[in-house]
């Protein structure tokens, strides 16, 4: 499979604070790639850089073998890259239907939009029911669905999903992730999934990267990461067996 997106040595910073220190990854077309990491590892910065909200300092991003680093979101959404931000970020005083319409802001084809809306309602029937409800009054899970649905309205080829499980109950997490999997399989939607919930993410993903303080420290097929001792200990919450026969509470979490 050809990579849909190739990131090479990407560096981003907020003023003097460097958040990405040379990240390289590749996203094959039709796959789900997950980026794991703890708070402050640079996951969201990576997403913001890929979607064009933040200009990188160094490095390159190629999408369908075209350089796209430094382009702004309005260009990238037209190219088919959509960012579903962390924490839903819906438009609270607009109706569900209007939120969806804003997701399709860059599109003008009315017929295509109607088809898209039908598709979105098929995946998220609850949004069809709540069409005219103010989005701010939806529950957390519904808001997350709306955020994903709003992203879909742009008919993306690549969706950047930032923490879709944030603040949701385990049942809702399972529901959202099953929809993510279906979107990938049925619509062929390529995704980069940033998650703290490593188990859920590795279950749907094909390939995983581990980000630590702005660097990729480990990557591999999702099943292999799931079995890796380091991943199991640090992200899946399984105690490591130590030679002293008891748990070491403060094992240094360093990779290099």
């Amino acid at each position, binding site marked *: 499979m050809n990579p849909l997106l190739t990131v090479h040595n990407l560096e981003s910073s907020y003023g003097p604070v460097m958040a990405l220190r040379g990240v390289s990854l590749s996203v094959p077309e039709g796959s789900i790639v997950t980026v794991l990491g703890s708070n402050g590892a640079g996951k969201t910065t990576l997403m913001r850089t890929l*979607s064009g*909200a933040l200009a990188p300092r160094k490095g390159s991003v190629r999408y369908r073998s075209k350089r796209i680093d430094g382009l702004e*979101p*309005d260009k*990238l*959404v*037209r190219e088919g890259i*959509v*960012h*579903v*931000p962390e*924490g839903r*970020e*819906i*438009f*609270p*005083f*607009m109706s569900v239907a*209007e939120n969806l*319409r*804003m*997701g399709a*802001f*860059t599109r003008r084809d009315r017929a295509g939009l109607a088809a898209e809306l039908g598709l979105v309602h098929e995946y998220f029937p609850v949004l069809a029911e709540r069409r005219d409800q103010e989005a*701010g009054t939806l*529950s*957390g899970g519904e*808001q997350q669905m709306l955020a994903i649905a*709003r992203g879909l309205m*742009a008919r993306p080829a690549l969706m950047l999903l930032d923490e879709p499980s944030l*603040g949701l109950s385990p049942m809702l997490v399972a529901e959202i992730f099953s929809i993510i999997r279906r979107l990938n399989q049925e619509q062929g939607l390529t995704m980069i999934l940033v998650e703290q919930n490593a188990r859920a993410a590795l279950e749907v993903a094909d390939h995983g990267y581990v980000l630590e303080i702005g660097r990729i420290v480990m990557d591999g097929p999702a099943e292999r990461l799931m079995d890796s001792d380091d991943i199991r200990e640090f992200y899946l919450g399984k105690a490591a067996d130590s030679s002293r026969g008891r748990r070491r509470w403060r094992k240094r979490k360093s990779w290099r």
Partner: protein
Amino acid sequence: MDTLQLLISGIANGCIYGLIALGFVLIYKASESVNFAQGDMMILGAFLAIALLNTDQADLPFLLGLAIAGLSLGVFAYLLDALLLRRVFGQPQLTMVILTIALGFVLRFVIGAIWGHDPVGLDSPVVGQRLSIGGLTVPVIDAVIIGTTVFLVAVLWLFFARTRLGLAMQASSQNQMAAYYMGIPVKRVVSLVWAMSGVMAAIAGVLFAAKGAVEPSAGLVFGIKAFAAAVIGGMGSLPGALAGGLLIGIMEPFAGRHLPSHIAQVSPYALMLLVLILRPSGLFAQVRAKKV
């Protein structure tokens, strides 16, 4: 009958306050700051219209002159945001407040330097005409002001509820980052809101100059009163701005008649204080905590 007459004149005044307050709120929602030059932009619009329309000046056809004055203010406000105010975005809100206050001073002096400091009226087709409806005498201009405001508000409502750009403006004000992610060109949208508010200022200025007379410094007091109206309505609510404007407009003539003049003059601000104490987010507040 007297009361009714006062009421109509109050509503007409209130409409002009309301239009300026709408400008305040539009910009507040788009730029998250207050444009204290709004009143002076209105006076600039008024003087521009006078220069284009009055018989001793350019003497253009009425509607053509109006269109030019409105468009000029729109372009002026667009460029003001695109070239100047956008640069201070991300600075503390006070930066923009001070910048617009300074801009107000500059506008006042420039207007005075070009057109002088004497009060001038606009020669409108309806100047001095009166309507008599059963014992009630209403200046035609008051009816025109009320009609224009109703029309503008309807157009604005349709624009925000129905059009793609109107919705994008709402989206940008409710969640700028998300709007940016959706591919909405937020910077341009904000500048367009400024342009809209500039056009509204020009229309308000024309109505104001047609009703009485304007002088360069009138924008200061007028702008502050309209600001009070916006605060009363709940800074951030468009219907609230209009309601606040009407409230102040209606209150003024009655206060002027029944209260000593020095008290009547502070009545709009007293009302603003009262609202701020009893309902701090205004009469028509649009606030709700974000769900996590």
